């Protein structure tokens, strides 16, 4: 057990190194660097001046030295300077990270809140009208592209019905820390979270329904029934115990989807998060911010997958044998 966790964790190190190398190379391929950024506002700079500064920043060193410096700083949380915002990238990201974390967290919670009961109902009462409705809903959830669904939600609930704000993170007129502030945050969060969650339930419902149907005909369930265990307890004590545990582990795998989703959701709802920052930065060619964000999101997926693998190996010992 411990050996598996240790081995799996060690596997993460080459992954992180490889990720950072790829991102570093991409960063080199991106037009412009820290110096061009710094001189954006100063068209009068002579080539000699620029060259001097390039030398100072070490941009003429061999790539591995530059990579070493970059990664050394990144580990300490220093991703350099954003030229469009004229502030350290880390400060910029720190100001936004809370919004994205909140969005993803609530989305994940909503997904589980909806998907688990629906999956159980569909799996337990297969081929009833409830199951058929859930399967149909799930089919829509699978087929609908997130950005189309989010747009339609925004159009319907914010523009046509006017129930929710049309975008943003919070009403700027409200003072932070008040109750109204919390309410305004919640109002701004609700539609983005629901758009992502209603579509995001697909995998969990599908997994749960199939797994319960599979478990239902297993011998241990038949034994439980034969012993006279009441039907309700067959599910709570026996089937669900087996079917629900892996669900907890899938959270880590979902991170990739949530990150991809946050780019669309934040863009559509003008939500001030990292996904929106990423799009803005890439449009403004502010590549120091872009690299930092890709690095952060990449690390998040790697760590998330690691956590899921570990939880899953605890829950299901069979996958440990490799």
């Amino acid at each position, binding site marked *: 057990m411990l050996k598996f966790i240790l081995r799996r964790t060690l*596997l993460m190190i080459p992954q992180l190194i490889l*990720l950072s190398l790829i991102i570093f190379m991409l960063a080199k*391929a991106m037009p412009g660097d820290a110096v061009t950024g710094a001189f954006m506002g100063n068209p009068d700079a002579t080539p000699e001046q620029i060259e001097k500064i390039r030398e100072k920043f070490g941009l003429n060193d061999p790539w591995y030295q530059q990579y070493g410096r970059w990664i050394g700083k990144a580990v300490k949380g220093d991703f350099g300077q954003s030229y469009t915002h004229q502030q350290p990238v880390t400060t910029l990201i720190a100001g936004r990270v809370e919004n994205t974390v909140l969005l993803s967290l609530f989305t994940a919670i909503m997904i589980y809140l909806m998907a688990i009961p629906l999956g159980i109902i569909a799996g337990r009462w297969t081929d009833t009208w409830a199951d058929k409705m859930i399967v149909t809903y799930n089919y829509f959830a*699978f087929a*609908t*592209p997130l950005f189309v669904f989010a747009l339609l939600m925004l*159009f319907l609930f914010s523009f046509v019905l006017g129930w929710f704000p049309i975008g943003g993170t919070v009403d700027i007129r409200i003072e932070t820390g008040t109750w109204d502030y919390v309410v305004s945050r919640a109002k701004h969060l609700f539609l983005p979270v629901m758009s992502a969650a209603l579509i995001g339930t697909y995998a969990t419902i599908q997994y749960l329904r199939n797994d319960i149907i599979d478990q239902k005909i297993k011998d241990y369930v038949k034994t439980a029934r034969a012993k006279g265990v009441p039907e309700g307890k067959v599910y709570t004590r026996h089937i669900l115990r087996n079917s629900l545990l892996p669900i907890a582990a899938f959270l880590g795998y979902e991170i990739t989807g949530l990150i*991809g989703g946050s780019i669309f959701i934040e863009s559509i709802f003008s939500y001030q998060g990292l996904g929106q920052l990423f799009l803005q930065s890439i*449009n403004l060619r502010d590549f120091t911010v872009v690299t930092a964000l*890709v690095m952060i999101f990449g690390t998040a997926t790697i760590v998330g997958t690691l956590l899921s693998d570990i939880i899953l190996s605890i829950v299901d010992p069979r996958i440990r044998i490799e």
Partner: protein
Amino acid sequence: MKNPVLDEKQLIAQEKLNNPSFMRTIWREIKHDKMALGSLILLIIILSTAYLSPLFIDNAALTRVNFLNTWKPPSATNWLGTDDGGRDVFGQLMLGARNSFTIGIAVTVLAGLIGLTYGLISGFYGGAIDNVMMRILEFLMVLPTLMFIIVFVTIVPNYNVFTFILIMSAFYWFGKARLIRSRALQERELDYINASKTLGTPSWKIMFFEMFPNLSSLVIVNMTLSLAGNIGIETGLTFLGFGLPAGTPSLGTLISFARNPDIVQNKWWVWLPAALLILVMMLCINYVGQAVKRASDARQRLA
């Protein structure tokens, strides 16, 4: 035997009847599922309208900017109104559907080929080769795909439709490779593969001509379902502004007008039809895909 050549042909034809191909099974399955049949018909109508529309709509007029005619709501001349340049939205919708679908197919086929080859090689050889290839795949699968595509789209020089297809394909074969690999691993244990090895058949031939036909239904199912997904991703990227270049409008191009709140609310005819069309196409392709999936598994068949 009076005419041996004819006899051969008759024999072959008869055995074809006795052994319905996978395509026939799919067709039988679709015929028995009203929703799938309806989806298929609707899809064919949409696509043939889109692909045949150049016969009725002047393509040059579609790209011509006419400032006297901007933001016109739907009317008899412009069924779905006009956009910011006075161009006909319906015509652009058809053009976009055509482009989106074609690119969706191209990406699906290309990514499918990469994934198939990777998965077959990894599964066929197994052992150390499989181990290394799977470690690489595991790494690729944890990359934040969407962000990487956006970055690539921005920094690639001479960006055009083909580079876009290449970039997308490069990032959407991982799942397929893993799927094919796990089936290939099971398949390589079967004796017909061993038999081919002892008969002196080269490895690449065994992979593609012995093993692959046995995985083909899996591949077809996966390709159908990922076609829908790829169209969704392409339009999504175009919607964000990192998809098809400006010269090649996609359905996402029309929807991207909706990034302006005024257009969302007051000029719905520009973006809403495209959004609904994508939705309908996705649902149809997926419904057909589900029928194909059932056809591939004898236990699930309805027919």
